[in-house]
């Protein structure tokens, strides 16, 4: 397919315009009536966004192909409007060598539903004892720039300092999973009113905030770049705001679920109390935290939305809360949740959404060819989104191999209609191509 004409799309929610794509590149934008193309897509009423970029995806391959594979995970990504995802390192084997990151990267190339940019582990085996071969991963075909022990915190202050310093040599960034381990031993749910009533071990906000504060200070001290994964508390937002006001090179992400759901879901929800579908790390917090996170994303204190898409097989969730796996899938609902939490509330316009879900995550991940404005000459990574429908979330219709969506039984606005990866449609009329 060499030419595609997208007709009447509202680019970033602006006035309708036609977009002509030729050989994977945006050729022309404007009133292109009468222009012939091999594929014409009627985009009347649709918002055109630059293809979304996820900084935080668990594709589970290698090791947990029962939960997700690179193929199914990238299909889910395409369905959600993503053209690139960062695959987290906590696979089995861990992505802590050039060999493993190259394997994941090649699988992404092979399936082609979206670009897969592997994340490398900070420490060997995620064990928090010694640095993984960060340089080898950076120099590999996968060109790793984001390093993270996600799922585990790099809690040793010296190791964290060294990692922050070391990755400067290749413009890398350490993405920290901020969780003080001693304060969260056996933790199950945000420590507060709900955990007290439910008798679930409390997961205090301070366990996240203390690490973020420490890491901001460390990053400033050694002049490095720090990225904070899945910020979940109002206190974390305050610390980040302070660090940014100092001019320190600190960025942060928030998940869609932390923008919408609270710990009260564990007590009452459409799927019953103590349903571990809501068990996630970091835990769902309070209304006050949700408000602070939304404001921080709106004012840029939090740079971007990252899904932390975490697929788990049914048997790991159909259990007692205490033994259930932590995490929820999110690629296929992220844009809808952001519309619900940020756009329909007036906190962000579509240009803001494009910035927080495409431009900034691409910049943080140093991902060339993604997150660029929709303009002539740019690679044609485009998502067409219809914000008007509102429908019940149907887990069985999802492309992900897993079904652990927390939105079952809820209605959400919007629908991804089409996704183009360098001019090649990966999704058309809401269906995988």
């Amino acid at each position, binding site marked *: 397919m060499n030419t595609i004409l997208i007709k009447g799309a509202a680019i970033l929610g602006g006035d309708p315009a036609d977009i002509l794509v030729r050989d994977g590149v945006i050729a022309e934008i404007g009133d292109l009536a009468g222009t012939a193309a091999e594929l014409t897509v009627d985009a009347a009423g649709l918002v055109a966004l630059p293809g979304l970029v996820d900084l935080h995806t668990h594709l589970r391959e290698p090791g947990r192909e029962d939960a997700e594979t690179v193929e199914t995970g990238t299909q889910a990504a395409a369905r959600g409007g993503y053209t690139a995802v960062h695959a987290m390192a906590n696979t089995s084997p861990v992505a802590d060598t050039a060999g493993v990151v190259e394997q994941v990267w090649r699988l992404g190339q092979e399936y082609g539903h979206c670009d897969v940019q592997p994340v490398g582990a900070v420490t060997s085996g995620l064990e928090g004892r010694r640095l993984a071969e960060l340089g080898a991963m950076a120099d590999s075909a996968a060109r790793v720039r984001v390093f993270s022990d996600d799922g585990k915190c790099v809690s040793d202050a010296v190791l964290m300092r060294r990692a922050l310093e070391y990755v400067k040599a290749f413009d890398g960034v350490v993405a920290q999973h901020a969780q003080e381990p001693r304060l969260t031993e056996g933790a199950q749910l945000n*420590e507060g009113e709900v955990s007290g009533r439910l008798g*679930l071990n409390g997961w205090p906000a301070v366990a996240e905030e203390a690490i973020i504060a420490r890491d901001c200070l460390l990053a400033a001290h050694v002049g490095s770049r720090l990225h904070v994964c899945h910020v979940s508390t109002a206190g974390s937002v305050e610390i980040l705001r302070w660090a940014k006001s100092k001019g320190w090179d600190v960025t942060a992400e928030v998940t869609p679920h932390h923008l919408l759901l609270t710990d009260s879901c564990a007590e009452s929800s459409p799927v019953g109390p103590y349903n571990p579908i809501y068990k996630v790390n970091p835990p769902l917090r309070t209304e006050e935290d949700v408000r602070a996170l939304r404001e921080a994303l709106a004012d840029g204190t939090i740079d971007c939305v990252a899904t932390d898409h975490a697929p788990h097989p049914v048997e790991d969730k159909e259990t007692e*809360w205490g033994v259930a796996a932590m995490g929820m899938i999110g690629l296929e609902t992220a844009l809808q949740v952001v519309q619900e939490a940020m756009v329909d509330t007036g906190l962000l316009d579509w240009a803001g959404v494009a910035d927080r879900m495409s431009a900034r995550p691409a910049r943080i991940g140093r991902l060339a060819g993604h997150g660029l404005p929709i303009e002539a000459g740019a690679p044609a990574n485009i998502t067409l989104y219809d914000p008007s429908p509102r429908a019940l979330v149907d887990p069985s219709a999802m492309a992900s191999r897993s079904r652990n969506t927390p939105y079952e039984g809820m209605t959400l606005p919007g629908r991804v209609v089409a996704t183009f990866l360098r001019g090649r449609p990966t999704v058309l009329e809401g269906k995988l191509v």
Partner: protein
Amino acid sequence: MRHLISAGELSRDDALLVLDTAEELARVSDRSIKKLPTLRGRTVVNLFYEDSTRTRISFEAAAKRLSADVINFSAKGSSVSKGESLKDTALTLEAMGADAVVIRHGASGAPHRLATWVRGSVVNAGDGTHEHPTQALLDAYSMRRRLGRLEGLKVAVVGDVLHSRVARSNVLLLHTLGAEVTLVAPPTLLPVSVETWPCQVSYDLDAVLPKADVVMMLRVQLERMNASYFPSAREYSRRYGLDRDRFARLHDDAIVMHPGPMNRGMEISAEVADSPRSTIVEQVGNGVTVRMAVLYLLLGGSEPAIGGTA
């Protein structure tokens, strides 16, 4: 009412119905033949994932006195120890036709999950650090028998509130029934959000004791000491134990309770535990009666609690 999972779900009328039904059933216990035909042909499964002989035999005795068939399913030596999930166990019990499942489980919320997988009634016999509603009912029953009322009673609950399912259920139930609860514990053994609970909180046992009508001592597990909840057993005992001197400061009609098993010499001294104002042994007997009332109300439905002779 289909299940009994949380004391918080009981309305005042529900709770009083359980207590009044227990009073009626208690009269049967005085007969030479204690058995009633009420639940003949019904199956009650005791599904115990934690060792708790006293709670299990209490439920077993209650079910048997109502003529129910009782199946004891203990996690040890069963398929559970081979890694069978709670869901699969639930489906198995469902297939066997369990009319009620009494569950004791180490995970908070396990009875809620179970209730989504079985059609029969679920009775929570203690889940993790969440609730133990039949304990709260038997405690309320014991208080009412001794003191004649619950409305306006001042109840001090002393000890490891943070990890106590007994404390949670008692606070909820006693509040519903009009008693005034004060939780007494070192700050480390209280949930951070305890100020949102329908009760008072104090760190000072001596200040609370003179006004209390009921002092309920909770078991304190020694492993909490290793996790630095308090410095030593001796210091805990000195600050929060009910010893002879503190006992002497209670008013004359006040009673002492303990859900058992006790650590004599730790949270309660032997002479207090064995005094006539202690209801600790009575609580055990009342436990059977109250659990009979619960099973009857969940399963017996329309038949009168006390029909003809067995």
